[in-house]
């Protein structure tokens, strides 16, 4: 039997990517009857769906964020366990993006489509590594889809932060981090780099840090950044959501060095616009080399690009002989806490 053409059973609709023979959406941006959710970031996991299928970690994150609005019927699916929805077999494979993040592996009549959600290829001590799943169509993000985005080794970036703490021991170092994934990864990287001093976390990060611990990612002792007096904050290391850096909250800090952990920090103008004094290029998204390597390794003859710099990645993929097109899915790429403003990730 000939494989069905992918566009005969997968459609981009205003609500998101619709899987026709299974009657479900992947990462829908508006409430739907049945959703498969790749990971807990707010642009992928929205509240208000009736039935949600996701990894247990992603469901726990959605419940922590949305409470009852996480969905009326939550179905947990571990990595690698197949289920059938309508005529479609669904399996989740690790995406290496944040805790619980998954690629949705969809099969119908011998045609396999992998919707990878957001992903990265490098090591992350807080989540399972990306799994290469050979397929007919690979659906990819392109957040950092320009060849100027080459994330350096994250250990070097943490070393920059520790060096700064040594040069400016009396100044508070406040690091802007997204609350899901980045915060916990930076904590783990600091621990691995041998930082045994206290790490203060802004109130908005505490719930997800506690959840990571509960889900088996040890972070070590964290102190609240909300109760400390200004004098105690001299030389302290504080993690806070990016929105708090410019906020009145930051005034409790002693002459702060404002750092920001994000892939966008690679481009100086972007870092400057955000008033950052210590840019740390740490990203939970694939950089250009990871994106292009993944296309080669997955080996799908056809590539669909959902969001980010679609144009450049499509151009590159075509040069390499792939059939490639941009899906331009609306609503993705606006991760957490004002990412749309200047970009996080």
């Amino acid at each position, binding site marked *: 039997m000939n494989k069905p053409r992918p566009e005969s059973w997968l459609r981009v609709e205003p609500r998101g990517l619709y899987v026709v023979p299974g009657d479900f959406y992947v990462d829908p941006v508006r409430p739907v009857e049945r959703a498969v959710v790749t990971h807990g970031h707010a642009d992928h996991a929205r509240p208000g769906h009736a039935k949600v299928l996701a990894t247990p970690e992603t469901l726990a994150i959605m419940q922590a964020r949305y409470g009852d609005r996480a969905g009326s019927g939550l179905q947990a699916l571990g990595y690698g366990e197949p289920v059938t929805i309508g005529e479609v077999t669904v399996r989740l494979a690790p995406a290496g993006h944040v805790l619980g993040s998954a690629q949705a592996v969809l099969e119908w009549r011998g045609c396999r489509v992998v919707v990878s959600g957001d992903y990265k290829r490098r090591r992350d001590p807080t989540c399972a590594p990306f799994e290469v799943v050979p397929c007919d169509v690979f659906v990819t993000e392109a957040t950092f889809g*320009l*060849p*100027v*985005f*080459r994330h*350096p080794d994250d250990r070097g970036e943490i070393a*920059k932060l520790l*060096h*700064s703490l040594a*040069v*400016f021991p009396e*100044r508070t170092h406040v690091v802007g981090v997204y609350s899901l994934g980045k915060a916990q990864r930076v904590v783990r990287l600091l621990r691995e780099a041998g930082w045994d001093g206290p790490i203060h976390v802004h109130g908005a990060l505490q719930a997800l840090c506690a959840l990571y611990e509960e889900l088996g990612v040890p972070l070590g002792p964290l102190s609240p950044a909300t109760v400390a007096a200004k004098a105690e904050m001299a030389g302290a290391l504080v993690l806070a959501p990016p929105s708090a*850096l*410019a*906020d*009145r*909250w*930051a*005034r409790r800090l002693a*002459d*702060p*060095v*404002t750092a920001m952990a994000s892939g966008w920090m*690679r*481009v*100086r*103008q972007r*870092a*400057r*616009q*955000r*008033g*950052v*004094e*210590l*840019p740390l290029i740490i990203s939970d998204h694939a950089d250009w*080399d990871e994106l292009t390597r993944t296309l080669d390794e997955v080996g799908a003859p056809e590539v669909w690009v959902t969001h980010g*710099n679609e*144009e*450049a990645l499509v*151009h*590159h993929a075509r*040069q390499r002989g792939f059939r490639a097109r941009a899906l331009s899915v609306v609503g993705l790429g606006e991760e957490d806490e004002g990412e749309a403003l*200047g970009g996080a990730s």
Partner: protein
Amino acid sequence: MKAFAALLDRLVYTPQRNGKLRLLVDYFRHAPDPDRGWALAALSDGLDLKGAKPALVRALVEERTDPVLFRWSYDYVGDLAETVALIWPERPGANRPPALGEVVEALRAAGRGEVPALLARWLDALDPTERWALLKLITGGLRVGVSARLAKTAVAAFGDRPVEEVEELWHGLAPPYGALFAWLEGRGAKPELGEAAAFRPLMLATPLEESEVEALPFEEYLAEWKWDGIRVQLVARGGETRLFSRTGDDIGGAFPDILEAVDFEATLDGELLVLRDGPEGGEVAPFNDLQQRLNRKTVTAKLLQRHPAHLRLYDILFEGREDLRSLPLLPRRARLEAFVAREKPRRMDLSPLVDFASMSELEALRAAARENGIEGLMLKRKDSPYLAGRPKGPWYKWKRDPLVLDCVLMYAQRGHGKRSSFYSDYTFGAWTPEDELVPVGKAYFGFTDEELKRLDKWVRDHTTERFGPVRAVEPGLVLEVAFDAVQRSTRHKSGLALRFPRVSRIRWDKPAHEADRVETLEALVEG
């Protein structure tokens, strides 16, 4: 290269002088010789390398990248050196990454035709931040917000020495400054100055506060006009003549007319001015005219003729080889007067003394001085030797009262460091005849911490638009702005700019439409 690149990268993002200083000291402490010496040379504008033009760099990268992706990337990043640094295809293990010293030495030894191949080989071996630093170094102009003076201050702080001591030695030293570092680390003797026409650190004045005026023992002081030019030091020694700025930068290239006028041997302290024809011969032209002559590597004959430079002398540090700096001011002044009478140096004259019998008389003279070229008065203690740096007491500057205008707050920008959560940098404007507001200046000091809090709240409550760290606000708050003069400028849409603007008062009470108008500023333009 790694440590130097990391230093430049960090300096670019560090706005505070003190922060930059700490980063530089830390670098000098950890980087090896000769790298740190070359870095010091690069940061103090003392490194003259065979460079590469942007077109060459572009050609190299275009051989190695997809042209469409390069164009999109360049559009996105906006800066050629940075785009190239980021997009250059990695070749891990291609070569061993070079140290800064190797790069500099290879460039000095290479012929011009060899530069592209060297550059490509290094770019292959370096990481993106190092590539960026290399490209900045090789395409000229680091532009990381470090002045030569700051670099010297940092190296002095690294050795726990006053900066004046390093400045005095500076022109006898050559990169990579091995002897300097050895001395600063206590491993070697203090370098000798030799016969060079060397810069001698200046003696600087402190501002005279209003509260100090009455108690000042005025009979112990000489008074002179404070000229509105730039402070310079002219050094002629052993057939060599140099003109230095206050911070020891050699600015002689822009003032050949002064250098040509020298046919004596001495070190003189004075004010560099531009003269123009006046009713009684040469008179001091507005500061703007002097600005035409500054920051140039070469000058045209036309510029020399239209804006002739002039040196108004007020002190003598060396006459011939004789060091006069330990003499008190009165005999030094006598030596200067005799020197000028004897040598009659062209393009130079003596800064006259101002006679006065009481402080109130002096105050009246200062208030009346409104002509071009005078900023106020200098008061110098008659018994003061010439001391490097800014000792408090022997020399005072007493500026005339500033001008003030009521301006309307237009934009506010977030500050840095302690002020990073405050909107603390203000752009203000004045009304045009069409009742539009146009920016005329920017100020970020002149208010207390309490006022800053209130200003910040006002900005947040009256924001109309946001662009990155900047907010546009409703035209509803009047700032009384003090400044020294109004100049023509292309920086602002109004065509005008205020010199040394600072917020003198916040006029919470005053309606914005009663603020000053552009015509009022026009009337104050110097000239």
